[in-house]
């Protein structure tokens, strides 16, 4: 029953000028300069299984959310935990550490729809994540992780250059986070081998190989492409705002209008 109006449904996908398709830049750049503010092309990352990309061009690209992405090679423990999480349906968010504004861990915190900013010094590469002020320190002056590290939300990262690629090794992640937005679990054994490469002047590639024998029977990778955003810096983003209308009082007019960092 139509109430005197016109039903207008647009089928198919509309593409907008804002699709952010990258075009390879021919500008000269320093391949070992990762600094700048970078924005992911889309939410989530692209799963790569057995060398075959499971994501790009297919929809959805990757596990930005539940029910998305190809099935991962999980152990029985991980499969049970994953299935139990999916069964919660709309109540999933109650089990998500994000619900309490905890850090999202690695590699998930690299996949949020807000930018990251990379600062470099001789000793470290620092990745500032706009998502709730998380920062990652990738120490370049260490060849081994310290012994007896306590597990943390974001782990401990050390890196070294292999040609034009920054190879980052991350351990000491406790198991309270998910790998991604879909709810894929991991254990404290999680070990990430990450390769960060500036592909051209405007493009950064981050590919993380997941090594977690407690949760996954085979290694697999998650890849994400970022685009340089000249003039941008990470802004304030306070997760706790998300959970309470009362907290909006902290904004002068009840709205967030940027903190000047753009």
């Amino acid at each position, binding site marked *: *029953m*139509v*109430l*005197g*109006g*016109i*039903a*207008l*449904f*647009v*089928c*198919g*996908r*509309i*593409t*907008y*000028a*804002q*699709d*952010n398709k990258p075009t390879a830049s021919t500008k000269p750049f320093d391949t070992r300069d990762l600094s700048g503010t970078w924005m992911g092309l*889309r939410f989530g990352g692209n799963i790569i299984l057995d060398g075959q990309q499971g994501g790009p061009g297919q*929809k*959805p690209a990757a596990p*930005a*959310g*539940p*029910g998305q992405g190809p099935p991962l090679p999980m152990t029985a423990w991980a499969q049970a935990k994953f299935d139990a999480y999916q069964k919660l349906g*709309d109540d*999933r*968010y109650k089990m998500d550490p*994000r*619900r309490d504004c905890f850090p999202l861990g690695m590699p998930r915190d690299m996949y949020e*729809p*807000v930018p990251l900013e990379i600062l470099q010094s001789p000793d470290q590469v620092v990745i500032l994540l*706009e998502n709730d002020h998380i920062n990652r320190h990738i120490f370049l002056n260490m060849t081994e992780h310290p012994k007896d590290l306590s597990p943390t939300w974001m782990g401990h990262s050390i890196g070294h250059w292999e040609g034009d690629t920054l190879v980052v090794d991350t351990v000491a992640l406790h198991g309270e986070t998910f790998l991604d*937005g879909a709810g894929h679990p991991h254990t404290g054994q999680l070990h990430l081998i990450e390769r960060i490469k500036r592909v051209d002047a405007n493009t950064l590639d981050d590919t993380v190989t997941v090594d977690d024998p407690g949760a996954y029977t085979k290694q697999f990778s998650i890849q994400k492409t970022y685009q340089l*955003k000249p003039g*941008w810096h990470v*802004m304030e*983003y*306070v*997760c706790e*705002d*998300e*959970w*309470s209308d009362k907290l*909006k009082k902290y*904004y002068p*007019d*009840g*709205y*967030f*209008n*940027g903190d000047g960092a*753009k």
Partner: protein
Amino acid sequence: MVLGRWKQSKLLGKSILGRSKVKSKIAVSALAAVAALALSIPMFAHHGGSEFDDKEVTTVMGGTVTRFEFVNPHIEIFWETKDDKGVVQKWWAEGTTPNLLYRYGWNKDVLKPGTQLQSVGGNRCKNGDNCMRLRKIVLATGEELPVPR
């Protein structure tokens, strides 16, 4: 107008809705007619976005903004349309974080209550309610507010 600098024709170029052909009409479906009676639309402080149909885009023509929330984690736009018989439909759209939109020129004042709309397009709520995940928004002036993905 604060957004006068946006390139209207370029951004509207790919829309299948030519400005000249469109008058203020209301997009109504059988399901929406029923759902429109509900004044309060269930909202989750944060959710995975899985409740939106991401295969198709629904476009609602016309309307007036009644409320606009420019806060994290998602902006929220509330607007009303009125059909030929004067029946009011209430709509709600969720967008991305204001942090991102701010960089594309949005601010808290771009959709003040009373702002006239030409069209709003998005991924409709799977349950058929008058709600969507925002994909495109055009003001009655013809200016389009960029919606980055």
